[in-house]
């Protein structure tokens, strides 16, 4: 089994936000929820860099550790998923998540924030693969169809890479060697406790 990871090559990201749009469309994500987002660092100054960020599917995920109902689980592909049936919307995963990935339908609303929603690595949820019930709660399950996450698949500059960690790390390494620079594998040290030596 592969160890699935995301890698955003910030030197290639052109902040087109197509990954965000593709994600929203593919999973019919409701208003106010953004499983993926693009943030620009040092915007407007020379050397600004944009990074597309979503759940990084951490090794030893902090969200799973702090969840009071233990609603998270890690798949054989090392994708971190959760059960919306068990989630109580307490918001603890958001405090623990280093990447701000968990989203709630009713932010800051008194009483309940609703069931948490986050990037599923296009791998659905605990329901049977590609059923209506799974789609309604978690969106489509591309991984079960043998496809990679849509955000990375349709990235116009191939900045966002998804797939087996070793393979995408190799691709990134080759890029950096060839062009002579790289701003780093954003989030890797925090999510996977490893970085790509270039």
């Amino acid at each position, binding site marked *: 089994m592969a160890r699935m990871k995301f890698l955003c090559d910030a030197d290639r990201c052109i902040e087109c936000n197509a990954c965000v749009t593709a994600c929203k469309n593919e999973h019919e994500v409701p208003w106010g929820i953004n499983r993926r987002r693009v943030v620009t660092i*040092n915007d407007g100054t020379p050397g600004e860099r944009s990074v597309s960020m979503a759940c990084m599917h951490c090794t030893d995920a902090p969200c799973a550790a*702090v969840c009071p109902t233990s609603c998270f689980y890690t798949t054989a592909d090392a994708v971190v998923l959760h059960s919306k049936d068990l989630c109580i919307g307490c918001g603890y995963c958001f405090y623990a998540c280093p990447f701000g990935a968990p989203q709630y339908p009713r932010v800051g609303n008194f009483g309940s924030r609703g069931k948490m929603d986050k990037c599923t690595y296009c791998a659905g949820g605990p329901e049977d693969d590609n059923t209506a019930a799974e789609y309604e709660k978690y969106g489509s399950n591309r991984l079960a169809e043998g496809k990679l996450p849509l955000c990375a698949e349709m990235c116009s500059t191939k900045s966002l890479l998804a797939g087996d960690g070793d393979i995408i790390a190799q691709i990134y390494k080759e890029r950096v060697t060839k062009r002579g620079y790289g701003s780093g594998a954003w989030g890797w040290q925090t999510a996977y406790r490893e970085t790509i030596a270039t």
Partner: protein
Amino acid sequence: MPSLLKRIRWIFGAVALLALVAMAVPAAAQQQPSLINPTASSVKEDQLLRELNRIQGRGTLPDLKSQVIEQPQGRSWRQFHEVTLRWICAIAIVGMLALLIIFYVVRGTVRIIAGRSGRTILRFNFLERAAHWMTAVSFIILGLSGLNVTFGKTLLLPLVGPEAFANFSLAAKYAHNYLSFPFTLGVLLMLILWIKDNIPERIDVEWIKQGGGMVGDRHPPARRFNAGQKMVFWVVVLGGFAMAITGYVLMFPFYGGLSIGVMQWAQILHGVIGVLFVAAILAHIYIGTLGMEGAFEAMGSGEVDLNWAKEHHRLWVEEELGRREAGSAPRPRLRPAE
């Protein structure tokens, strides 16, 4: 002649253009060096993390917290929530229970030395008792549902299974949210009702020196509230307000631009103060029920036995009886002998 003039003008113009181009070429070459380094001033992830321990930028979403793309301090919060808080909680609550059991075994119930007199005196009126019990009932449910958030998954989840536990936790979360209102109101009410009797004074020092009469049979004098009760009062008032403030921050997350760091700290304080609060109230519950004969009636019927009152709150009883006689109020009610 006009054609010559035209030709001269044309030659002059061509020379001028040539000169302009010749001058412009080196200037353009200066602006665009042949070697381009696109990372000359670019940000690097590891450098940002090292310097700021947080990476933030500009996003297109109205949700401002989406602009923080990395906050590794979530890890510290996780460590607190999963390890530190559990230890504090276990030590405070299990430790307090152990202390109370040891105390009960050694000291037993504190009896009324003179025995019951049969005559009673009103200690807490209906409003005072209502405020107490509104706070108490809310507190017990708040405490249990709060402990469930930290310990439920280790203690309760394996017993009842994930679905039942999730349903219970959801209900507990709602209870925790909504009961915060009667709890806060109760604390506020008790503050107003009892603050005048809870100002620390000199006799409190004496009371503490004598160990409150908990050890041995001597009872140091006290007014309406002794030093121990005053401590409970201030623990409840200060702890209650600390819990309310941090709790409402957690209930209305990120309101008014609160950052994730503030939310994490609110949770840390809420957890630690809550656990210590529960431990303190366990002692309060013990001494109000099992630990002392005649104490529960104060909050039960509101009428305490006169001998109990004389032993524990001598100065208060003297004051109260004196006032009643002066105001020709009815004497303490007699209970028929049965």
